[in-house]
């Protein structure tokens, strides 16, 4: 336990001193403000651009347009930033050899994995909540929010998807010992899941859909049963990937 706490503290110090925490908080705060601003000013921007005499009119934006932007931004730029910033989580230590001193002190190998997952999950949660808070504040200022149905599931789902990607990066880093290997595995899985998502029947089971049509869940167009299976599968996958990372790391030659 003391080893877990000590290493967790080290992970926190590392995320501060390598600017990872600062950058992720900054990026997600930016995305949180960007989404409502973009929704609000889109019609203005369209009006001001001259499309060669063609008049483009957009309907008056609503709170839901803001949330649609939010899930789009978080799901694309947000997750991309999270993945790039976290890809070195295992890989950097294994390629450099910094874990040798730690492990030869008697630290359990699985503790390393759990510790890293804990801190990465916390940083992701803090960044995402900051993003959500900013988006919520701006949206509430611009529009009447109206009723947001199933808002917990709608807002929690993207975080779960992010956690899945983090654990994929940990597994990739453990298996391949390199930043690129870690990125490739995660990228490969994301591409595969995106291709699977073309099949409508599979969408409700596919973790990648956890950050997509969340607005439809909040307006009532989609139901809990369209999201919950994917969320449960995603959570199970996180547990399985953690176990796989522990096994892979136990067998890794250092």
């Amino acid at each position, binding site marked *: 336990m003391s080893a877990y706490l000590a290493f967790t503290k080290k992970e926190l110090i590392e995320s501060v001193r390598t600017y990872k925490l600062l950058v992720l908080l900054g990026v997600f705060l930016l995305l949180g*403000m960007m989404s409502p*601003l973009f929704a609000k000013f889109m019609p203005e921007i369209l009006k001001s651009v001259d499309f060669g005499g063609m008049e483009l009119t957009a309907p008056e934006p609503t709170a839901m347009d803001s949330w649609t932007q939010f899930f789009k931004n978080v799901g694309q730029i947000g997750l991309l930033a999270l993945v790039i910033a976290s890809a070195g989580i295992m890989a950097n230590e294994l390629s450099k050899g910094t874990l040798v001193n730690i492990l030869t002190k008697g630290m359990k190998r699985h503790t390393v994995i759990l510790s890293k997952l804990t801190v990465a999950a916390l940083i992701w949660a803090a960044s995402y909540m900051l993003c959500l808070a900013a988006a919520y504040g701006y949206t509430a200022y611009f529009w009447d929010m109206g009723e947001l149905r199933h808002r917990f599931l709608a807002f929690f789902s993207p975080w779960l998807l992010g956690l899945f990607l983090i654990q994929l990066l940990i597994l990739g880093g453990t298996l391949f010992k390199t930043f690129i290997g870690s990125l490739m595995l995660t990228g490969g899985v994301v591409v595969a899941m995106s291709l699977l998502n073309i099949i409508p029947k599979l969408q409700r089971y596919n973790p990648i859909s956890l950050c997509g049509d969340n607005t439809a869940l909040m307006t009532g167009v989609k139901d809990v049963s369209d999201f919950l299976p994917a969320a449960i599968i995603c959570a199970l996958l996180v547990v399985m990937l953690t176990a796989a990372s522990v096994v892979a790391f136990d067998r890794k030659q250092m």
Partner: protein
Amino acid sequence: MEELIKYLPLLIPYAAIELGLLAAALIHIFTHKTYRKGNRALWVILSFVQIIGPVLYFAIGRNDE
């Protein structure tokens, strides 16, 4: 335009953070001589890529040796 000025107090924090990220990356780039990957010119250019630029620099280019 009128709308933009009206909402200026809401736009300023956004611009501040965007510039803050860029400044953090640029300051780090110019106060360090070596990079894990790439060179100074590359990272200066890349940091101007919105949002992802600074993220890339701190994840891949930053070297604290």
